[in-house]
């Protein structure tokens, strides 16, 4: 039998239209620029200025081809590589951190966890100069590692936090059953904890993908060669080169959004599960 408080029911029904209206307003507010961008990416520049809110009279798919041929494809590949390596590393190392913090009892465990969490409040901009010096010292400046290493370091605190919150909900008996079954620590991590953390891993992966994909400051500071530049830097230079061809620029922007958008659509169910994981028993 489900018990519903009459007070709660009344207050929910009276406020529901207002909440719905607010949510609709928020949806329009969020989607308006995106729809505008998509529509105009298929027009000529003149048509965009004359009729920016109508459907294109002729759909200029070639804007996308032009944008890709301007070199955007190269930046997309760089971004995909840096983002994939960073996200996999963040998820794997974050999961290992969380596993150790959840299953092993060692002196100073809380201090280590607190130290890791401290990383979440550190603004990346503060570290720019010391990071530059360190990366230069180890010969990583102007290499992919100059982006990947800082991305992983700055992503780990949040990943560890979320994954640890998830792993604390995994019953201790599963670990012990695996120990009795003959599993070593790494095997238990790989075969039990990692597959059971899929929702949290999806959430970490998606959040870190968006953060890494859109990152600008490190990519701008630590990379000099055009061949290593990622999409965010590419788009900014692309904008300079195409100052007059706005609709091609818009097509380029749409291309830059697609990978994150598709990933979100694929992972959204697990992502939501991951974010609410541990909220209730």
């Amino acid at each position: 039998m489900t018990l519903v408080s009459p007070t709660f029911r009344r207050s929910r029904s009276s406020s529901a239209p207002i909440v719905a209206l607010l949510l609709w307003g928020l949806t329009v507010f969020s989607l308006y620029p995106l729809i505008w961008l998509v529509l105009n990416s298929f027009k000529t520049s003149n048509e965009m200025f004359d009729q920016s809110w109508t459907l294109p009279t002729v759909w200029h798919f070639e804007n996308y081809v032009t944008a890709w041929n301007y070199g955007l494809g190269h930046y997309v590949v760089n971004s995909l590589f840096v983002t994939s390596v960073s996200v996999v590393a963040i998820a794997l190392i974050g999961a290992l951190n969380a596993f150790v913090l959840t299953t092993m009892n060692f002196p100073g465990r809380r201090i280590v966890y607190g130290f890791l969490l401290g990383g979440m409040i550190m603004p990346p901009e503060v570290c720019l100069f010391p990071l530059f010096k360190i990366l230069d010292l180890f010969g990583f400046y102007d290499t992919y590692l100059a982006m990947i290493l800082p991305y992983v370091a700055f992503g780990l605190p949040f990943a560890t936090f979320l994954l640890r919150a998830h792993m604390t909900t995994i019953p201790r008996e599963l670990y012990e059953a695996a120990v009795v079954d003959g599993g070593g620590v790494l095997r238990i991590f790989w075969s039990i904890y990692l597959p059971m953390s899929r929702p949290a891993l999806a959430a970490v992966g998606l959040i870190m993908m968006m953060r890494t994909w859109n990152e600008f400051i490190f990519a701008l500071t630590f990379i000099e060669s055009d061949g290593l530049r990622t999409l965010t830097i590419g788009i900014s230079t692309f904008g300079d080169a195409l100052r007059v061809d706005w609709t091609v620029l818009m097509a380029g922007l749409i291309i830059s959004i697609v990978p994150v958008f598709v990933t979100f659509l694929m992972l959204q169910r697990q992502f939501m599960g991951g974010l609410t994981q541990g909220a209730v028993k």
Partner: protein
Amino acid sequence: MATISIAGVRKTYGAATVLSGIDLDIGDGEFVVLVGPSGCGKSTLLRMIAGLEEISDGTIRIGERVVNDLPSKDRDIAMVFQNYALYPHMTVRDNMAFSLKLRRAEKSEIERRVRDAAAILGLTPLLDRLPRQLSGGQRQRVAMGRAIVRDPQVFLFDEPLSNLDAKLRVQMRSEIKELHQRLKTTTIYVTHDQIEAMTMADRVVIMRDGAVEQIGRPLDLYDHPANLFVAGFIGSPAMNLIEGHVEGDTFRDEAGSSWPIGHTPSEGGRAVLGIRPEHFRLDPDGLPFEVVLVEPTGSETQVLVRRGDQQVVCLLRERASTCPGDTLHLAYRPEQAHLFSKESGRRI
């Protein structure tokens, strides 16, 4: 199969002592039940045998080997947990095969053993299901299946029936017992339910506050409890315990009423008389009691009666048509009465 020998085993957490010198020998193929109230240390002892808890002092042997410092996986044991501890992302088949895969068994051997265990436990149609698609009883069977595929020397059960409803618990109790009779593997079973202990065990170990109170066959414990704790713990409804003192071959309660005990005990003075509820019978020549409460269950009737200030529970096979306020004449055989020292609690 193997013997298990536990000698002087202690467990301490800082200043707190959880187990204080446990000595226990378990024979090859024996089914031993550790029973006691919550916090008595029975699960801790089981976990120490399993290698999930460190041993502070003493020695545990499985077969000829001292296993104090041996990792769980090398002890050749299998354990069934209270909440089943099935891997939720694996099918029943994978759950059962997991330990064999870790031991790098041949694929055909894994398949054969899983198939055999599934057949024994009636799990064959469920092999491709996930644990969440199973009922409580089926999950329990999978947990047992996971244990038996390994053909270990020792089975350890940690309150495996606690999460089941009463009917299923009775059914699974029989299944575990049947399984033991079939496989004859040495088994240690932890429970707080004395009915489970009595019905399943070859021998019962009763524990309290980290120490063993008594070890023995179920009916020996029932008929000859060594102390007040065991007397009160074993049996449902619990034994009536009446405080008073011994005068020759008679026991006199606090209100001065006399209760026959049939013999002159070795110790006199203050004592506690124990009479099991089922040892009372209706007898016109018996002691008069005033009826306080009548609880018929169909097969028997539980009656709460009073004699002076002393209330006792009796269990009658007869369908006594009696009401609160009536007088019942009840008798018991004096040789079935138990006497315990008030000071030490030990049987006298």
